[in-house]
């Protein structure tokens, strides 16, 4: 567990983590990226070079796990906007 990790407050450990995770989430602003992610989450994560912790956090969609992996809430909120394929 990252010590003293609170939403909205600076944390020097997580400030240096999660760049690939956040970059993946930022890409989900685009519809074609959301579709590609929905079709193959593992492949999409691999293309963005997510590490194991980041990939597990994305899979789980767990807010705490995403934060611990360095995810920023403004970006990981976009994971919830991906429509699952029918």
């Amino acid at each position, binding site marked *: 567990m990252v010590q003293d990790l609170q939403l*909205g407050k600076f944390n020097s450990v997580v400030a240096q983590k999660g760049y690939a995770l956040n970059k993946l989430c*930022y890409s989900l602003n685009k519809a074609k990226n959301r579709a590609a992610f929905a079709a193959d989450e593992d492949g999409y994560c691999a293309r963005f070079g997510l590490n194991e912790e980041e990939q597990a956090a994305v899979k789980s969609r767990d807010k705490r796990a995403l934060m611990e992996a360095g995810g920023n809430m403004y970006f990981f909120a976009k994971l919830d906007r991906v429509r699952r394929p029918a």
Partner: protein
Amino acid sequence: MARIVGGLGTSHVPIIGRTMAAGKQASVSFAPFFASFAPVHDWIARVRPDIAIVLYNDHGLNFFLDNMPTFAIGVGHSYHNEDEGWGEPAPRLFRGAPDLSWHIVQSLIAEEFDISTCRDMAFDHAGITALDLVWPGDGVGHGDIPVAVIPLVVNAVQPPFPTPLRCYKLGHAIGRAINSFAGDARVLVIGSGGLSHELGQSGKINRDFDLLCMDKIVSDPAFLARYSNDEIVDLAGAQGLELMNWIVMRGAVSGDVSVVASHYELPISHTGGAMMLLDPNGKDH
């Protein structure tokens, strides 16, 4: 000569924009929030601002972590909306005011505020929703906004964030910048965001603190500027930091103001919804 004709604070919760797009303002549970803008529309028709400076926090649309300014002002001829993850929106263009934008930049830099400049920006729902509330046009948020717009983003994405005091001082500096602009401009300063909430969390609404903020923003804004950001997070949730946009607005519309309209709506989604219109000309409405 330019002058600030008013200051507006408003929530920008996404459901507000969706409700307007569906034309359901009168039927949702928070209908009174929309109704509270009726005096704003009357005031707009009387006072006729022609430029809106919109202070807001970008929500992971225009700025990424690779390049994250603390304060950034639009200096473009126009701005556009973009997909924020909810689907490609109908394209909208917002006319800019580059003369005033650049004048503000020059004035801020001279006052030692190191503001970033953006000649091209994707305009976030936080800014668009505020404009659609003030200028509802066809009533479903699809119309052209009839005034020029200057977006000004306050970082609320990557901590550490600018302090409330710094935001208040920025507001003062923006006010001085507008008052020294030689061109004619009737400026409405809009602070978009808040009040208490935290993304994805119900139960982070703090009604007492929200009502305190709405009182102090009128009577004693320096009181709010004495908080630290971490204190505001503890009191109002992580997204409660959007209060910064109201603080900048109040700094710009400095001095005595009368309250044209004020409303607190609990809740709008998981947010303490609020709106307030301030008039620096001391007229009672």
